[in-house]
């Protein structure tokens, strides 16, 4: 197990380098000149432009820029955005917001999605099953921005239960509605995945054995059925938590949450190279770590999987 983890961590290095390089190239290959954009409609003073270019290292060839960036990165310096704010500062503001929102959404996925899936899996073919299937199908088919605006209109504008946008992201109660909207799609997937998995395992030979042993129904379901059925669901949830940490551009946009998705979206629009590359670099690491944790969790859940 130990050597497996070390190998996986080592494998992360080329993935990390490759991913950051690609992002770096793509951001700097974007058309438009961020320095010229700083001056808006005003004519730029060539001397000032040149000094700015030099300051942001833009007068160097791309590969040198990349090396310079990576060098700073290893000193935990994410650089400075064109607005003059340190990228580390920007991220330190955005990530806690996104993490809070992600956890609220994750909570909904588990607390609502899992039981729905178990219910419909166990009661296959009944009205409950049909109901869950229809609701999840609806949620999957409706785009997030539609769902988001409907939720906003109904719960904030019409019912007045919440404010239409998030005023204070430290207040978890304000994150409930956006969290639910953000969770909706994955929640539907979790419910359906659980349902399928339970349905498959319910017909498995070892469930028949457990019944033949005269075990009480509750033991059969919780010990034998759920333990096996939840393996694929847990892996999905793990990967999804990684995705949620990446921020939610649409949901954060609708509810005006200053999270990673929101910042990233604006930074791309304003060709804020250092901010975009900085955030994406952190996200790459988050994904890599999340997928490693999922793989390790998988081995814990299923003893047949051994990493050596």
């Amino acid at each position: 197990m130990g050597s497996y983890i070390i190998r996986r961590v080592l494998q992360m290095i080329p993935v990390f380098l490759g991913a950051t390089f690609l992002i770096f190239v793509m951001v700097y290959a974007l058309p438009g000149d961020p320095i010229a954009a700083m001056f808006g409609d005003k004519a730029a003073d060539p001397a000032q432009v040149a000094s700015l270019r030099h300051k942001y290292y833009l007068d160097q060839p791309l590969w040198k820029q990349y090396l310079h960036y990576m060098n700073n990165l290893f000193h935990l310096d994410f650089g400075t955005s064109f607005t003059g704010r340190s990228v580390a500062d920007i991220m330190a503001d955005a990530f806690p917001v996104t993490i809070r929102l992600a956890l609220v959404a994750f909570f909904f996925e588990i607390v609502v999605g899992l039981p729905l899936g178990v219910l419909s899996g166990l009661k296959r073919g009944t009205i409950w099953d049909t109901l869950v299937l229809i609701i999840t199908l609806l949620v999957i088919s409706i785009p997030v921005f539609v769902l988001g605006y409907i939720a906003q209109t109904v719960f904030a504008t019409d019912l007045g239960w919440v404010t239409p946008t998030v005023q204070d992201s430290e207040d978890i109660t304000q994150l409930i509605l956006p969290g639910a909207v953000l969770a909706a799609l994955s929640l539907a997937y979790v419910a359906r995945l659980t349902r399928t998995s339970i349905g498959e395992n319910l017909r498995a030979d070892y469930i028949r054995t457990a019944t033949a042993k005269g075990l009480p129904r509750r033991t059969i379901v919780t010990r034998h059925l759920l333990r096996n059925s939840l393996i694929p669901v847990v892996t999905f949830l793990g990967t999804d938590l990684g995705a949620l940490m990446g921020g939610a551009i649409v949901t954060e946009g609708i509810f005006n949450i200053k999270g990673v998705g929101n910042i990233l979206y604006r930074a791309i629009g304003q060709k804020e190279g250092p901010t975009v590359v900085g955030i994406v670099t952190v996200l790459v690491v988050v994904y890599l770590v999340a997928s490693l944790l999922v793989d390790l969790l998988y081995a814990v859940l299923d003893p047949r999987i051994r990493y050596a």
Partner: protein
Amino acid sequence: MTTAVEFGRSERQEPYPGPLLEVRDLHVEFKTRDGVAKAVNGVNYTVSAGETLAVLGESGSGKSVTAQAIMGILDMPPARIPQGEILYRGQDLLKMGREERRRIRGQRIAMIFQDALSSLNPVLSVGHQLGEMFRAHRGASRAEAKARSIELMDRVRIPAAKDRVSDYPHQFSGGMRQRIMIAMALALEPDLIIADEPTTALDVTVQAQVMDLLAELQAEYHMGLILITHDLGVVADVADKIAVMYAGRIVETAPVHELYASPAHPYTRGLLDSIPRLDQKGQELYAIKGLPPNLLRIPPGCAFNPRCPRAQEICRQEVPRLFDVTAADGTPAPGRGSACFFWKETLDDA
């Protein structure tokens, strides 16, 4: 350790005078999209303590479905039992409440399945799965259950039981896994064990070991054993009597050696003739022509008639009951029966 042993024995049943299990006119059908499949159509058999009944038949003959009906592990629906009784110690299992039935399962009547790898839960240790029997039925503590599991593994001769009790099913060989299934069935010392093709998934050498172990334990505990198989070779050594099934009916019953020596049903005859024999090396193997019937459309009359070399008009019209078979010289042959209008002729041919 003494307390653990007493603890296991405490619920041992008193000997029962009659047959332990009596299946009477059992019918099982399955509702499918294309109609009703009649899997079992009036099966009768009995098993007494210490006796081994072999139920022989091809897949689809209803042998496993009958066993599952006895265990009460059929999925109902789609399965339905429109008719019949299953008497265990004189009590009809089919009329019992769910909870009462559950207490009999595993405790009084236990079952061993064919494929031990898929029949054991892959994510729970074998110790957990064995110990569960004591925990669920006897309210044993974790430690007690573990001690009893090790004892059981010893009894089915799994080497180094103490070290292996926390291992998972995939870490055992096929033969060892089937021993664990046997240990599980044996855990609460049931009266009756139903073994559904217990050796089919194993290597031939391991098959013999597992069969010997099963027969030995059965004798030791004086249990009834229903051995379901399609393998004529497995049956010969261990069974006392045989019931041959075809299309959900018993077509022939006989004490084991008489069946081999003089089959009284053309289907049994066909089965025996299809065993490859060394003295016929090089010749084409005998095969019963045709295929087993579709259970949605069992042919009228005797279900075997389209494949039977002896079929007459009456076979296509009337369902033969199980006739009492007498020996060639007219003396009665106890325990023998054949569901063939021409059992006498079949017997004479042999």
